[in-house]
């Protein structure tokens, strides 16, 4: 794959949006990979957390839009507490979710879509948090 870089890309709206929602400076990350190394959800991610940040640094909105990583993320903050540069990666993951979820009809989980037997089995805390994280 090829990336074309330009000022418009690396300082575009996407980067600004992610930085604003997350409150994080993407360029604070120096790509050491410690977040990916310790992420308990990484085994299921198509793009690892450090690569997600790398692509965000380069303004690669399209490729990130295809990624499952931030939908798999547990918000467990293992990455955040271990980041040597103090980047709150969990917040960047949240921001990437919100970039999508704030658009109409882009929910990953719908309250009405959950089967009754699942609803019966699940504790309330699971349902509420899932909806909080994965729907707009």
């Amino acid at each position: 794959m090829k990336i074309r870089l330009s000022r418009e890309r690396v300082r575009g709206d996407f980067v600004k949006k992610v930085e604003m929602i997350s409150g994080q400076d993407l360029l604070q990350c120096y790509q050491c990979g410690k977040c990916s190394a310790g992420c308990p959800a990484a085994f299921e991610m198509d793009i690892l957390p450090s690569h997600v940040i790398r692509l965000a640094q380069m303004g690669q909105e399209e490729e990130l839009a295809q990624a499952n990583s931030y939908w798999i993320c547990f918000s467990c903050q293992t990455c955040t507490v271990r980041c040597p540069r103090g980047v709150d990666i969990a917040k960047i993951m949240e921001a990437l979710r919100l970039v999508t979820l704030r658009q109409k009809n882009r929910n990953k989980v719908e309250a009405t879509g959950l089967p009754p037997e699942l609803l019966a089995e699940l504790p309330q805390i699971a349902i509420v948090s899932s909806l909080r994280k994965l729907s707009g």
Partner: protein
Amino acid sequence: MSREMETKALIVGGGVAGIQAALDIADGGYQVILVERTPSIGGHMVQLSEVFPTLDCPQCILTPKMVMCGQHPNIDIKAYCEIESVTGEVGNFTVKIRHKATYVDWDACTGCGQCEQKCPTKAPSEFNRELAFGPRKAIYSPFAQAVPNKRVIDADHCLKLTKDKCGVCAKVCPTQAIRYDMEDWIEEVKVGAIIVATGYELYKKENLTEYASDPDVIDGLEFERILCPSGPTAGVIKRPSDGKEPLDIVFVQCAGSRDPDKHFPYCSRVCCMYCCKMAMLYKHAVPDGQAYIFYIDVRTDGKMYEEFYQRGVEEDRIVYLRGKVSKIFRQGEKIVVFGMDTLTGKRVEVEADLVVLAMAMIPNPAGEKVKKILNLKTDEFGFITESHAKLHPVETGIDGIFVAGTAQAPKDIPETVAQAGGAASKVLSLFSGYERNKACA
């Protein structure tokens, strides 16, 4: 200057920086007092197995210098001593030196070592980084080639001094040198210039809580002792927990360095090279073994360093993995390392036998007192601030007080030696300029 100048120098710290500065000044014809806190000069360098990129052994290249210091008519080594106070100014400093009680009359001690051989009490050896393999005795000399070659009694462990029992060292000493009633004493000296060379220590492993506290998770200096042919394992590579030969070994660089959020923002400068070196030496000792090095950037920027690193990869098949390690923990016999290779974008899990952490270099905590006494400026981490980063890299901002070696910032041996020479040159300029001016006048 109207006042007479005391053309004698004081050097605080007897590591390679202090040794080099002492020799340069002494060779320049001036008297040097070399104060060392431990029983022998040599510093961290004598603890090392071999040094990069030449793979010389420090026993071959440093001990001759130590001996030269010991025999130099212009050098007065004051080992097991500490600086108590300093007053005065350039040309005329008055320094009080505390001679810590050694409980051995060094004038009488011949260094024969009979006391050490007979002493029944073992204690962890500072020189061997307190590894399980290499305890010392309560009366000891830190290592075979110690300069001065004298014994001291460790008052915390000696049975005579703690419980008034034993006393065997006094019985066997052929020169009756043992003095259980010795006390610290203070000596006052006058010097014209001071070089601070108090060196470094490694940041404590326990500070990295995501990495297990485990006997088989060791720091760089501990592994140096294990690699050292004259070390406590006689150069046989064993892991501390069970003495087995480790076949998978993981090196973790930037352990505490380049971590502004939790530890230190700075780069410790030498770890890239020493990890590569240790991995090579490991591989030479354990040909079946495999070394892995986790890194962020390989910083091999000295003369022949890049070439050295390439040799490690090509000849010794070191596997370099670009990424910080997130977690280290014991699982049965193995030490599990959760890492990452940011280049393939894959997570890496290694089941290692031994893990070596390249802990951040920090200023030697034992130097804190000296810096306070001399009123030296330091950066927020405690490294001594030079008066100008470029133009005056060995001056401290106080006339007549200079800095050399890792007390100023992390640096490797060639840089330390060159910088120590630089500090010595300032002292020589000062003394020789004064004398030649006096001669002209």
